[in-house]
């Protein structure tokens, strides 16, 4: 009754090759021990458990900065929240629509550079505005940066519509790299390899989000809003269309879904969240540099999604929290401080082992229930 088959969003492309077996992918060997936990998180239990868990997680997240005094860890958790949103945004494209995007970092870069360039332009030209009075701009930027990224998302998405599977992946990768190379070389606009420093911080009037403590809550608020929007989005008509395209594009088209339009929409929506986070990143660290947007970042984001388990809402969040924290925590070991490259080796091995033993991710790919009412009925029957 439950669909236990791990999701393979690229299955339609795979089965497009004649003769390649398309049977259900074999589940990981170590599936069982993690399953009760995964079930809790993905709400296979009663409804109230799910809400209690959600509330608990939110409470912990909100109380975290009162407990942790270390600046380093507070910064880290702010970064974790950025990656939570990035991974969830990418999950719209990869997990829900089944389009492999290896250039997602481009949209993050667009947001970040938008915030930086707007600041440079206002500073340079003034436009008769006082920079200290411009606090409201930091908030407008979040939306405009996201919007710009969304437009870029559909522009970049357009030529990839005809492509499938890995060709699509390599094309998105190319766009991602082009944007980074342009950012690195268009010195007149982006200040090239020296980066833009002094991007203003978020502020409401005189209240500036200058401490890590304040920024953390801002990040938390943004993350909660983003996740809420995404969770509504994927349960909407649009989200159902995305899922249909992922599961079988030809069938979806036959059912009257305008696949091109919904794919573009998926790119745009995913890009929007990356754009907002780019702006947040710029206005949080006050510094934007091309090396923040390397191709490896795209890979990291993809890893977060797959690691946590794609196609659900919880997976990317779990993936981001665990992976980014692990990355930083490993630095604490004396051995790794002496041999920094060992950290990279460990991360690589962990990635391979996790995929071997749990290819569907930590939480496991479980569909987001499309009709909550149906779901409730099913639960009560149990």
């Amino acid at each position, binding site marked *: 009754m439950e669909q236990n088959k791990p999701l393979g969003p690229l*299955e339609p492309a795979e089965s497009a090759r004649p003769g390649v077996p398309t049977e259900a992918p074999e589940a990981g060997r170590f599936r069982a021990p993690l399953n009760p936990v995964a079930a809790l998180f993905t709400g296979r239990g009663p409804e109230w458990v799910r809400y209690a868990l959600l509330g608990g997680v939110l409470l912990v997240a909100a109380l975290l900065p009162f407990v942790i005094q270390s600046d380093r860890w507070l910064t880290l958790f702010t970064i974790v929240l950025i990656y939570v949103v990035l991974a969830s945004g990418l999950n719209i494209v990869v997990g829900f629509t089944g389009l492999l995007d290896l250039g997602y970092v481009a949209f993050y870069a667009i947001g970040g550079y938008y915030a930086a360039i707007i600041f440079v332009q206002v500073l340079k030209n003034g436009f008769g505005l006082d920079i200290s009075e411009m606090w409201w701009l930091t908030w407008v930027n979040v939306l405009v940066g996201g919007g710009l990224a969304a437009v870029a998302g559909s522009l970049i998405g357009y030529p990839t519509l005809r492509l499938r599977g890995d060709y699509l992946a390599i094309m998105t990768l190319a766009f991602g790299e082009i944007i980074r190379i342009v950012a690195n070389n268009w010195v007149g606009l982006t200040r090239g390899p020296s980066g833009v420093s002094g991007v203003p911080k978020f502020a409401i009037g005189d209240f500036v989000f200058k401490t890590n403590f304040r920024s953390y809550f801002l990040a938390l608020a943004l993350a909660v809003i983003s996740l809420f929007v995404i969770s509504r989005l994927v349960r909407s008509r649009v989200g159902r269309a995305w899922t249909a395209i992922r599961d079988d594009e030809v069938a979806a088209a036959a059912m009257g879904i305008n696949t091109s339009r919904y794919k573009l929409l998926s790119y745009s929506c995913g890009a929007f969240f990356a754009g907002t986070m780019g702006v947040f990143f710029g206005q949080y660290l006050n510094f934007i540099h091309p090396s923040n947007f390397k191709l490896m970042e795209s890979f990291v984001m993809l890893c977060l999604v797959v690691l946590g388990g794609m196609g659900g809402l919880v997976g990317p969040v779990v993936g981001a929290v665990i992976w980014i924290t692990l990355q930083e925590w490993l630095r604490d070991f004396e051995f790794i401080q002496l041999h920094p490259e060992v950290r990279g080796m460990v991360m690589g091995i962990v990635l*391979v082992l996790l*995929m071997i033993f749990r290819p569907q991710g930590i939480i496991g790919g479980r569909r987001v229930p499309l009709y909550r009412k149906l779901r409730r009925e099913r639960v009560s029957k149990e």
Partner: protein
Amino acid sequence: MEQLTQQLVNGIMLGCLYALIAVGYTMVYGIIELINFAFGELFMFGAFICIALTSSEISLFGSMVGMPQISFFLAVIVSMLVVGLLGVAMERLAYRPLRNAPRLAALISAIGMSIFLQNLAQSVFGSQQIKFPDIPVFTDSAGMAKAVTVLGAQVTYLQLFVVVVTVVAMILLSLFVNRTRLGRAMRASAQDKRTAALMGVNVNGIIAVTFLIGSAMGALAGGLYGAVYHFARPDMGFVPGLKAFIAAVLGGIGNIPGAFLGGLLLGMVESLGAAYIPGGSQYRDAIAFVILILILSFKPTGLLGSPVSEKA
């Protein structure tokens, strides 16, 4: 004119190197449909092993170790063997358990492998760039590269060697795939793994052989690349690896002549673009990506690729 021929020569040589790595990508993709991002790292190991074997001593794990200082040609062959076996081990440990898992899991595993190998190289050889020793056959007594002048362009012996080796390797590979029993088994596995297995083909063995050949070709390219540009560095494999993959896609992935064509095309366009487009040298890496986008926009299956049916 002289500049044009010079750039063409440089481009052809660069293209040959891309083509050698692209063969690995294209053969592996042809059979198990995996983008093995770690080929760039195998390429890097190829260069490092060549340096290690041709030097009199080298720093391993931070301590100097004496080395046999064998001839470059022997070193390339040894490094091809070692890296080939490394590739087979990688397939056995990181990819085979994921053969039936969702495709993305295998891709992530490949990324993990690539991160691991790059850091392993840093740990073994240090994170600094190390210099490739001069090769006696290709340099004169003053340490200058021996060269011939063709149409005003300086063509070094080493560049000629690269081109000849690549062409020979491509011809041998094509003959291998099209004419031998093992090659036939390989093509059969690429078409349909299950049916091939039913016909008595040892599919796992075939995949291992594919990785062996692909990795050895990557190591060959790495050794030649290191010799041409006189260096090796743990992160040197990333960009050439990526471009080789682009070359494979350009030619139509899964197709060996396509990989050669794609590599040559990419190398030449990149070389000419860097020379003639204003600001081209800064945007050198972007040129490859723009070409890729253009070709895929008009011919989504690559130049020599066969069209994929919508739904079987």
